[in-house]
């Protein structure tokens, strides 16, 4: 139990003053601008937006600066800010088929229509430290080539046309406001797939990565191919009831991953491929692939698969522990004063030792 205590105001104030100075660091080094963070630490900004569950690159960059680069602290700041914003409504679901692609690869089809587009990737770099960056050497301009205006269809839609891919059922929600929202109602189990996907897209990347890796190593084995990974810009549209039409009010970068997994079939369904799905704010393919693997693992019950005691298949385990703000809130509260609780424990252990001593003396 946490018992409120008073005192320490002066110490707290001084600690925060020191924090502000420690955040600034050596005054001989120029102050870091929020725009610099937004532009040059873009993947950290993307992670803060995804886990903070609020798309606003300037705010995420500010949060990173304020948190001294502590990503979870920055996510905490964004979550806290988010609660102050009135919700005007929900968008029309984004159409990722209409994405303006900057990267798109498939591990299942070499000659997919639209091709394999590498984009700005760390893949194939040698992971050797580049000391030119320490010297601030400007990069050469990115090469350009003639772009095809043709659409880039989802690769898995081709399997769907052959009936080899399990179709995605439409949701129960009649309209946007009916889509389950864990920021509005407490999580209840069993959770629907839309609720699970919402929890996974804002989940801690490290936690999801480990769970996804555990499925690959055999804990809830479910061999996944990356059917398609795409990163690009999508338009976000909203219906304007006072005007009677939709407007595309925002443009955001997202990462999407669709995995292809085997499904043996059941009494009612033929053998076919099933899908795991990941969709995340920003450029974050590690998170999107992890999300897709965990989404697929959590479908084990629905697909009538063997359920062992694999953590990734345990919906309550995954969804109750994937949020890093919830986790660190409970974890870190134990550093707050528990003086009274501990006094009680101390008294108890002293009494037990006294009683045991008395028994020993009596026995001698």
């Amino acid at each position, binding site marked *: 139990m946490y018992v409120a205590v008073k005192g320490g105001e002066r110490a707290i104030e001084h600690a925060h003053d020191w924090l502000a100075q420690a955040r600034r660091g050596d005054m001989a080094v120029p102050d870091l601008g929020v725009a610099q963070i937004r532009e040059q630490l873009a993947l950290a900004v993307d992670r803060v937006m995804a886990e903070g569950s609020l798309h606003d690159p300037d705010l995420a960059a500010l949060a990173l600066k304020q948190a001294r680069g502590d990503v979870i602290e920055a996510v905490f700041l964004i979550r806290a800010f988010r609660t102050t914003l009135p919700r005007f409504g929900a968008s029309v679901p984004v159409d990722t088929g209409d994405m303006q692609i900057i990267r798109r690869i498939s591990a299942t089809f070499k000659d997919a229509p639209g*091709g394999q587009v590498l984009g700005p990737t760390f893949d194939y770099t040698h992971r050797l430290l580049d000391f030119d960056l320490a010297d601030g050497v400007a990069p050469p301009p990115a090469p350009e080539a003639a772009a095809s205006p043709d659409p880039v269809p989802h690769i898995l839609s081709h399997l769907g046309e052959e009936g080899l891919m399990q179709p995605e059922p439409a949701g129960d929600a009649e309209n946007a406001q009916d889509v389950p929202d864990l920021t509005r109602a407490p999580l209840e189990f069993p959770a629907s797939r839309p609720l699970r*996907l919402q929890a996974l897209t804002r989940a801690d990347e490290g936690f999801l990565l480990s769970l996804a890796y555990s499925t690959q190593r055999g804990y809830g084995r479910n061999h996944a191919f990356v059917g398609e990974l795409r990163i690009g810009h999508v338009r976000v549209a909203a219906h304007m009831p006072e005007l009677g039409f939709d407007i595309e009010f925002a443009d955001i970068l997202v990462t999407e991953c669709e995995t292809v997994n085997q499904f043996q079939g059941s009494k009612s369904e033929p053998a076919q491929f099933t899908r795991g799905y990941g969709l995340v704010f920003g450029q974050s393919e590690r998170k999107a692939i992890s999300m897709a693997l965990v989404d697929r693992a959590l479908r084990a019950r629905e697909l009538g698969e063997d359920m062992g005691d694999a953590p990734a298949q345990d919906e309550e385990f995954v969804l109750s522990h994937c949020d890093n703000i919830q986790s660190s809130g409970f974890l870190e509260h134990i550093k707050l004063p528990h003086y009274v609780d501990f006094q009680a424990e101390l008294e108890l252990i002293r009494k037990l030792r006294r009683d045991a001593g008395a028994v020993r003396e009596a026995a001698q």
Partner: protein
Amino acid sequence: MTADPFARRDWMGLIARAPLARLDALWPDDPPAFTWLRAPEMGAMMVQGRAGAVGAAFNLGEVTVTRATVRLDCGTVGHALVQGRSARKAERAALLDALLQTGAGAGLHARVLGPLRDAECGDADTRARRAAATKVDFFTMARGDA
């Protein structure tokens, strides 16, 4: 770029997505006389996606937005729902939306909307051309025993 006339839904979106600096550079004019029907208000819209890209809708996360509504002295009403947290951008967007519905609209189409669309298409085109330069050309290796 295409020279299609702009429908109201198109110009509202185009202005909503534009960076404020670009909008200010194209339309630095003093605002006409107007009254607020809804002063700029910052908030969030929940962005939704679909399971498996085509299935059930789910909540992906929110995006910051600002909305405003103005009425010009002639009675024309302008609405704005813009990406980001700028009261000024929402005000400018709502005023433009109103003006574009009036006789002043024709001039603003050419002066503001055309360049805004060209700039947005230009950004997209640069990204598409860079992406195209990273497209993989596969070739089949000749086998040693052939």
